């Protein structure tokens, strides 16, 4: 009995250690993931979701119109930008800002929850485009999923507390699956 209590305590402490004080909402499936800045983050989220058993579609250029009449329950938006990615997609940061703002507005109007994600480390926090991407997505998110290496300077910890947005952190990419399972309440 004592061992079970001890184990439960350890698991609880471990779980709470990477969740901020604000309560995490439960996200529902199916989800759709897009990127604010055309980095490969959305692709990575989709692949991790697949492995975690969470139904998730990736649409890098998802628009507000695509959400109308859809059955998505969750919108995931990755933060961090790629110049090559925006070039590949034929877009730029201003257009991305416009698209994502409209998308999140429509998502909320249609009852979708918004999950902001920064999962590619400090290499997606190097310039003003990256900062703008975070500035757009973070305050409009219902919760955040953040890679520890993206938070080396404690920026996301500080900012999420300031905005009172719950955040879940993970260290290794392969641990992201566990965080996703927790967010979507998948056993």
């Amino acid at each position, binding site marked *: 009995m004592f061992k079970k209590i001890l184990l439960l305590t350890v698991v609880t402490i471990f779980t709470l250690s990477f969740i901020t004080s604000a309560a995490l909402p439960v996200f529902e499936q199916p989800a759709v993931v897009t990127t604010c800045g055309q980095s*490969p983050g959305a692709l990575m989220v989709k692949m991790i979701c697949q492995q975690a058993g969470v139904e998730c579609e990736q649409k890098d250029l998802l628009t507000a119109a695509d959400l109308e009449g859809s059955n998505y329950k969750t919108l995931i938006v990755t933060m961090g930008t790629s*110049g090559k990615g925006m070039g*590949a997609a034929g877009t730029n940061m201003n257009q991305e800002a416009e698209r994502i703002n409209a998308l999140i507005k429509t998502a909320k109007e249609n009852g979708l929850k918004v999950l902001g994600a920064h999962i590619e480390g400090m*290499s997606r926090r190097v310039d003003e485009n990256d900062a703008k991407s975070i500035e757009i997505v973070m305050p409009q998110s219902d919760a955040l999923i953040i890679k520890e290496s993206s938070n080396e300077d404690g920026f996301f910890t500080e900012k999420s507390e300031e905005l009172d947005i719950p955040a879940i952190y993970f260290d290794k990419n*392969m641990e992201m699956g566990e965080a996703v399972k927790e967010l979507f309440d998948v056993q």
Partner: protein
Amino acid sequence: MSSKKLIIIKLLTAVLIITALVISARSFLAHRNYKETVVAGPSVTEVKTLGDYFEPIKNTVADCNIYILDSGKPGAIFFVIGGTHPEEPAANLSAEILAENATLEKGKLIVAIRANRSASTVTRPGDAYPQFYTIKTDWGEKKYRMGDRWTNPLDSWPDPEVYVHYPSKQMLAYMDIRNFNRTWPGKKDGSFTEQVNYAFMQIIKQEKVDLFIDFHEAELEYPVISTIVAHESGRNIAAMASMMLTDMEFEKPISMEFSPKSLHGLSHREVGDYSDAISLLFETPEPFLDRVRGITDEHLLLEGKDPFVQRAGEFGLLYETIDEDGWPIEVRVGRHCSTALMVAQIWNQMNPGKEIKIKNVPKYAEIIKNGVGHYFKNPANMDSDRIYYE
């Protein structure tokens, strides 16, 4: 001044100039004709040359070796090239490690060590590039030609006012008509470098290559660094490889980037567009290439340590971190070798029944521990029929 004195001054000047010309010409010739030794590894079943795939290249300065490592068992065919830009030594050294060490248990691996051979016969004297560099091995030092980014002007001259890429007609910088990574997919009757690219495309098509890898290095001031650039056909493989390598092998992460559809001439775009092969390009950091670097010598090339580049990092001017440990050649070569192996591993997971099994290629941690030269064999101990020259 009397006319006699003037004549003497002119004669002395002429003698000085001719002496300088002779000395530099001998130096340039020695560099251009220097041959690097490669010991064909256990799985090398055949060594062709580029001219075997496109006759006009045969016996020209561009006629580089093409190492075929064939398991004899059906599977995937990978093609790895180093030496696209010979001023990026981790690229040709990594390719050489593959050619000398890889054992193929399934599928086929094709390797070109000096893809743009002409560009390895010229350096950049105006930028104080060293002519040669040496790698310490277990049996002595191995000497390599340092090269340039562009094809030797002796082989391709003059440059146009504007380089118009074929077939997109995109206008690019004039000197990039000699940039092997701006001239894909090449042109049969095009410029020297375009013909070299055309020949490489013939290899990809004739050998039915499934996946093509182009090794590179980049300055830390450049945003596309420490990454895998992927054609859309290779996005899933690149994404998974970057996540796995960052988690499991590398101290500093490797990311991935999508190949822009509107940026032409690059391997990650054109090889994917003009063949059935998935095309990936790997980048490692090379502080030697940074414009803010200090003394430009072999030490910087191989150790990757530079206080000026480091200082630029402190001011947030770089896209990759650098500390007093720098970016030594072992780290850079290790990243290329491990990334290639990881891509193969993920390919195998995604393509059951059409795997490639590559063994005996050292990974990142092993290369850092043992050094790059540890994986090069002593030609003196080998049969002459296993020795090739680059």
